[in-house]
């Protein structure tokens, strides 16, 4: 589509923050005054459907996990609106549910930069001529947003909705279902949300961090956004880093090196045996010479998902850790879809057996068989994500698998028979 040239619709009357310190540039607990002082007011001119071209030129992708091109989602919502017989106003939802236990960046963003998220929501709403607007977040995120909304006059149409603390509550159709009907369970994906979502209306669900980036792109343009990151992964992203040194929230350039991310979080990479990237639906990798990017060859890149990096210290068995995670994921299945409801507990049992003493070499084959069986067979990607995690664990911890099957575990010497 249109490259951004001098024709750019935004009024760029000030410089955006330089470097990767963008989303929190207004400081901790930023109120409206600090927010406006740092970023300037949201431009009143040019923030409309023309924004779609600017977002496309920026290369912004969703920061909630799937890394879908944001402009496409917005454009699909606009198309659905003009195609609909009654031309019903689209619904726009800022998704801050963040059910992933290893992720805390959305909570931090809502707590410290709520005005940026609200700006982003208003920006997206203007791009699609939206009607009803929602911010959906767990209890931890709501008070700051409530205070922020009370400070401003341009956001009266925004409603806050509390999300339950479940793993799956942030899945886009679960978000729509939760707000419209109560239970935050995924629904069948026969129809796109952009065509028929909240109460049958065209619905746009965007992650809160995605919206915060859009609020800055609306102000400073796509070229500014691309001054950090790479062509395949422009801009910055928030990363929740966890591990032996505790939790650290970072904002890093797109396409960042995994080793650099760990060092920035003060993690001594020599004491780390593997890293889980992308969260519980993500991928274990070792060693550290990967780059975080939603696209690129799997041999050198690992998808950041919702920006989760979890470092596993040398002293811990990766198979045991993964077995615990898969047990959790099996429990968090919304138990609507057979293959997920039965398949995930079956996978958890087999992996548990492998992690805690089973020595039958068929266990590995059985995990592969079950993974193939559940993949692609749910209303949401919960089975697929779980299968991906298990597959990556078998690969990254192949030496441990061999040791376990031989009756030893390098991490738990003397404990196993």
């Amino acid at each position, binding site marked *: 589509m249109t490259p951004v040239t001098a024709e750019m619709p935004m009024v760029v009357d000030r410089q955006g923050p330089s470097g990767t310190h963008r989303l929190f540039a207004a400081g901790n607990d930023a109120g409206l005054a600090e927010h406006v002082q740092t970023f300037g007011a949201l431009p009143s001119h040019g923030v409309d459907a023309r924004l779609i071209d600017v977002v496309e030129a920026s290369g912004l992708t969703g920061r909630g996990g799937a890394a879908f091109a944001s402009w496409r989602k917005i454009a699909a919502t606009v198309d659905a609106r003009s195609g609909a017989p009654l031309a019903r106003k689209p619904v726009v939802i800022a998704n801050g549910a963040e059910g992933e236990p290893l992720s805390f960046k959305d909570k931090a963003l809502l707590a410290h930069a709520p005005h940026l998220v609200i700006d982003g929501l208003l920006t997206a709403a203007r791009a699609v001529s939206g009607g009803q607007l929602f911010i959906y977040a767990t209890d931890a995120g709501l008070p700051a947003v409530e205070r922020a909304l009370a400070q401003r006059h341009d956001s009266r149409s925004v409603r806050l909705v509390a999300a339950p603390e479940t793993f799956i509550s942030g899945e886009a159709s679960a978000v729509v279902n939760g707000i419209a009907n109560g239970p935050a369970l995924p629904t*069948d994906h026969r129809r796109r949300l952009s065509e028929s979502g909240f109460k049958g209306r065209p619905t746009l669900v965007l992650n809160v961090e995605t919206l915060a980036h859009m609020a800055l792109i609306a102000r400073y343009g796509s070229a500014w956004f691309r001054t950090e990151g790479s062509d395949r992964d422009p801009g910055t992203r928030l990363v929740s880093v966890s591990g032996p040194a505790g939790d650290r929230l970072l904002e890093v350039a797109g396409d960042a090196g995994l080793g650099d991310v760990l060092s920035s979080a003060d993690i001594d990479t020599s004491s780390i045996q593997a890293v889980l990237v992308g969260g519980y639906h993500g991928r274990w990798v070792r060693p550290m010479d990967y780059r975080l990017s939603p696209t690129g060859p799997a041999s050198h890149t690992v998808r950041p998902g919702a920006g989760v990096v979890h470092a596993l210290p040398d002293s811990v068995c990766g198979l045991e850790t993964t077995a615990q995670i898969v047990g959790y994921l099996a429990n968090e299945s919304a138990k609507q879809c*057979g293959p997920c409801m039965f*398949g995930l507990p079956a996978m958890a049992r087999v992996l548990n057996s492998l992690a805690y003493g089973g020595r039958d070499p068929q266990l590995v084959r059985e995990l592969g068989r079950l993974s193939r069986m559940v993949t692609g067979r749910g209303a949401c*990607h919960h089975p697929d994500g779980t299968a991906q995690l298990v597959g990556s664990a078998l690969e990254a911890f192949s030496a441990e698998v061999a040791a376990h099957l031989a009756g030893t575990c390098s991490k738990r010497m003397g404990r196993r028979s």
Partner: protein
Amino acid sequence: MSETLHIDWTRCDGRGLCTELLPTLLDRDDWGYPLAKRATNGDRSNVAVRPAHSEAAREAVHLCPKMALSLANQVAGFGQ
């Protein structure tokens, strides 16, 4: 135009009536749920139906006690 048989996993109860009506397209998995014998682009919730099986597929849609099946000419669905 080729059709696809969409399985709504949130409705299906896995008793397997459809797998009996469409043995060329569907197997049963470990728990009785319909398992596409061939996946199109890894998608096993939207099963390609060749014209020869169109009639049987229509019957399955009609007879599924949970109204979990539907036929469409193309598939929608955002990844997320």
